[in-house]
């Protein structure tokens, strides 16, 4: 369990700017510290877009970047309650045997994490060419939910369909899952692709993402964390905040900033530039999420 003092220590060992997201309900603030006291606060770590198996000029050190990140997370003074990987665990391949091999290698590397509560969702590189078949063999369901302390976490799959549809079956599941929640429940959604139209001309969207947002909209405390775009981005659809994460393979240009979404050139002098992971501290009482960005390595 982490408290504010521990959080400040964590930021002191190499974190970047802190981004605060979420809503403070006046009615909640008026109740003061109750069941949802500071002692229920916790934090998790989000890693994304590790692309295990990638070989190319955008990251000549691809075979070591993920391992370094695992070591950095293990070196955190206070360990998170859980760790989440938001997709593109592996780099795509047409060969199912190679896909399975990459996923097994990825699983073996992240099994070195000290924290054993590790959650996954797929990215299109993992799941789109076989509708998630091999991913499911190794990591289980592509969408699910779980509760941690007073927060309801929803893991959405917007990649097993190569057309980036969540699909009616999953949307029906989401609707049923949300119906069990109070309208002021603290809800955090993890997805790979943005649920909103961030940059459709770069395929940075979910074709039926608006339907998921419509289902989430009646809930007053919803925050979405996603990957896919290999950089930080912060956006609101109404009161719902969406935060994308950096990748652990190569950074991509700002949405729509150039003709092609080609990776930013690798910098030999700063090989981990633009890469990293984040910690998210959940403050239960105020439904705030403090995001701190970390580099791949401390050094």
């Amino acid at each position, binding site marked *: 369990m982490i408290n504010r003092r521990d959080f400040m220590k964590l930021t002191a060992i190499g974190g970047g700017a802190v981004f605060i997201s979420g809503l403070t309900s006046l009615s909640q603030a008026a109740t003061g510290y109750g069941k949802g006291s500071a002692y229920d606060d916790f934090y998790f770590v989000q890693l994304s877009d590790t692309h295990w198996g990638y070989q190319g000029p955008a990251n000549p050190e691809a075979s070591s970047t993920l391992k370094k990140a695992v070591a950095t997370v293990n070196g955190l003074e206070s360990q998170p309650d859980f760790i989440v990987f938001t997709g593109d665990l592996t780099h*795509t391949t*047409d060969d199912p045997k190679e896909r399975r091999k990459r996923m097994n290698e990825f699983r073996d590397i992240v099994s070195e994490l000290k924290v054993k509560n590790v959650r996954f969702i797929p990215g299109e590189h993992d799941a789109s060419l076989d509708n998630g078949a091999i991913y499911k063999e190794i990591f289980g369901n592509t969408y699910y939910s779980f509760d941690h302390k007073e927060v309801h976490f929803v893991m959405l799959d917007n990649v097993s369909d*190569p057309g*980036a549809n969540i699909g009616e079956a999953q949307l029906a599941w989401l609707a049923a899952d949300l119906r069990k929640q109070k309208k002021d429940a603290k809800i955090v959604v993890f997805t790979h692709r943005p649920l909103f139209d961030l940059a459709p*001309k*770069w395929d940075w969207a979910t074709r039926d993402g608006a339907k998921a947002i419509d289902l989430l909209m009646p809930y007053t405390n919803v925050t979405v964390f996603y990957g896919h775009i290999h950089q930080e981005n912060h956006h609101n659809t109404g009161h719902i905040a969406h935060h994308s994460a950096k990748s652990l393979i190569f950074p991509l240009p700002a949405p729509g900033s150039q*003709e092609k979404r080609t990776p930013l050139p690798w910098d030999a002098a700063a090989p981990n530039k633009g890469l990293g992971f984040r910690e998210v501290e959940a403050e239960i009482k105020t439904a705030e999420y403090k995001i701190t960005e970390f580099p791949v390595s401390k050094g």
Partner: protein
Amino acid sequence: MNARHRKAWQISAMCLTVAAFITVNAAYGSGKNSNKERLIKIVAQRFSFTPNELKLQKGENVRLEFTSLDFVHGFNVPDMNLRADLPPGKITTLHLTPEKVGTFDFICDNFCGAGHEDMGGRIIVSN
């Protein structure tokens, strides 16, 4: 050449001219605000569209005929609100009359493999 032969030659030349005009219009469209469509055939194959640059005129009626060779690619022009799935083994047709001048990017929006991110092109619309 006597008068009769000269008349016949003139008629033949006129017919040829009219025939050529009709052929050109069938192949390349008939310009602005015509009901006729210019046909453009596009091949989709991992990881490219051929051609990947389409030069159109504002107001021109265009029929795009897609043939996909290897995958259910997607053709999406977000800024024109125009998209279709392109299943192999059949011709997929889209009709288009650009209303704005400019350059409009298109992409494959069905993830098709390691070069998917490079599969795209642009439509250039001029006056």
